[in-house]
């Protein structure tokens, strides 16, 4: 449930180089695999939506029930301050950049075009990367996906949570 920060992305030499690489290679070998959103987008571009939806699928491993995590994230991110919004967009672009992924030991494909196993490998690489910038990026995406999923009441039963005790509250507030 958290955004990324441009300051952080640019903080390290590694971060600056990576951002430059991502920006300097338009379309970097392959395009993002598009995916249709179930609702009109407020924050994401169609490509950004597709990237985040692919990330969320692996973070949650196609968890049931489907609650539209990427759509919920899109609505949640809509009021993000401009600088934070820029950071998050750059993060998604970097995460799906095929050249960058290849240089970091992955297959020469955008994240959205990888097999699920390769996608998990990339998430795992970022999770414990020696580059702080990647660890930050991983946390931003993982927390957002997890927060959007597990804050949806439709997922409560799956974690053994009966939900808020509305009847108890009602018994007091309606007296």
């Amino acid at each position, binding site marked *: *449930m*958290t*955004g*990324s*920060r*441009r*300051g*952080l992305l640019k*903080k390290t030499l590694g971060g600056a180089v990576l951002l430059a690489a991502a920006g300097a290679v338009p379309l970097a070998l392959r395009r993002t695999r598009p995916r249709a959103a179930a609702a009109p987008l407020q924050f994401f571009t169609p490509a950004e939506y597709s990237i985040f939806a692919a990330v969320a699928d*692996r*973070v*949650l*491993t196609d*968890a049931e029930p489907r609650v539209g995590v990427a759509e919920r994230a899109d609505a*949640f991110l809509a*009021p*993000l*301050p*401009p*600088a*934070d919004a820029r950071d998050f967009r750059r993060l998604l672009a970097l995460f799906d950049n095929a050249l960058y992924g290849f240089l970091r030991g992955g297959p020469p494909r955008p994240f959205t075009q990888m097999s699920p196993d390769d996608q*998990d490998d990339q*998430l795992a690489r970022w*999770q*414990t990367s020696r580059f*702080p910038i990647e*660890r*930050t990026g*991983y*946390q*931003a995406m*993982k*927390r957002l996906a*997890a*927060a959007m*999923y*597990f*804050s*949806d*009441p439709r*997922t*409560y039963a*799956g*974690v*053994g*949570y009966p939900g*808020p*005790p*509305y009847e*108890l*509250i009602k018994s*007091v*507030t309606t007296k």
Partner: protein
Amino acid sequence: MKTDVCVIGSGPGGAMVASRLAAAGAKVVILEEGGLHTRAEFDMQEATAYPRLYQERGNRATADLSIAILQGRAVGGGTVVNWTTSFRTPDHVLEHWQKTEGSELTPAVLAPHFAEVEQRLNVQKVDLDDTNANNRAVWDGCTKLGWQVDTTRRNVRGCLRTGYCGMGCPVDAKQSAALTYLPDAVARGAVLKPDSRAERIAVRDGRAVAVEGRGFSIEPDVVVLSAGAINSPAVLLRSGILDGPVGRKTWLHPTIAVAALYEQRIEGFYGAPQSVASHHFARRTEGAGFFIEAAPVHPMLAALATPGFGAPMRAQMAAMANVAATIALMIDGFSDDEGGGTVTLRDGLPRLDYPFTDRMYECFRAAMKATCRLHLANGAREIHTSHTRDLRVTSEADLRLIDEAPMGPNLFGVFSAHQMGGCRMGADPGRSVVNPQLRHHAVKNLFVVDGSVFPTALGVNPMESIYGVASWASQHVQKALS
């Protein structure tokens, strides 16, 4: 709009000053950037509560995301969303401030203020029988190990112990500032302006002449800045009031968590979220101290704290009802070489950096081992630390894994629910932003009255300290008016 006093922020500091000054007959305007929310809106859903009631919609964090920051943003500030734990400032902390910064605060000076606060907020000690299983695990584990532990005191009246303090009390049992000192102030004529963010304090010839925001300009005789740690230094920075170490030495009680899995259901989502605390390790000599408390276990917060992703994360989440969540809060600020956090501006908004240090790593490791030990003693089946790569402890022998695990930003989860410092008080203008009476060193009709003036962290939950210090400081603000 002209007034005697403009208070920026309606958390415990601002609410208290406003109430005291309004009672003394001053014309008071209170600006609050957050909204006015009441119990009917508190639906006990994380998806609603965090965006509505927390800074940056629940998104606040250090710039590298290594410390997630829970900080209130509403009429009543943090008192609307905190977990009601009420402690007086420890005597040894006040002594330290006296010795190092020339603070005028002593236990005797503050005692009458704390007594009044405790009465107004109905602060009462929790009966052990009223603790939930999540807190009881801390009690039982500490007791079995011979560690100091006690029930806490809480500011509630008619509490149903539903467990949703962090999302706004749905039955108005929590005696927040929004239900106590703010209504007191308004009843005495204070004007409360929600959704009114102070952009800057205008200064002319060494005096604050106006508080400006979108669509308003207040012209007070005295300004009281009570926007809280992180936001108060940001207001000063935006205003170009740069004297002293503004924004520096911000303290967070950086907090690690462990999740202990029990055979039986714990249901940490219900019951008073915090009712037991151990200060057994608060005054360690081998490094920074820490104290131990429980944290509520609701799905979204639990998911944020659960390491990893994919099937392993979901498996841990599926066992959430059987988890006891225990936190250990590092007491930062007591070593001369500690820098703590630094607030700067980014596009006019606060940015916080808090670099991790070896002192922190030593403390975090000790805290992880202690919290694991208490759950091992209490019969937990397994305990997971907050390391990004899952670290599972099932026996004393496994504790070495904590020493072996790599440490670094975002390699383990850290959060903060207590923000302090950044506008520290002190006699030396080179080391502090406000003087011992909380008056700004350079801008003489400006006071800072909130947790940002604390020279160190407290080692206890900060709400009551802020109220008490603000009550004491009100007399100095009042003198400045006359």
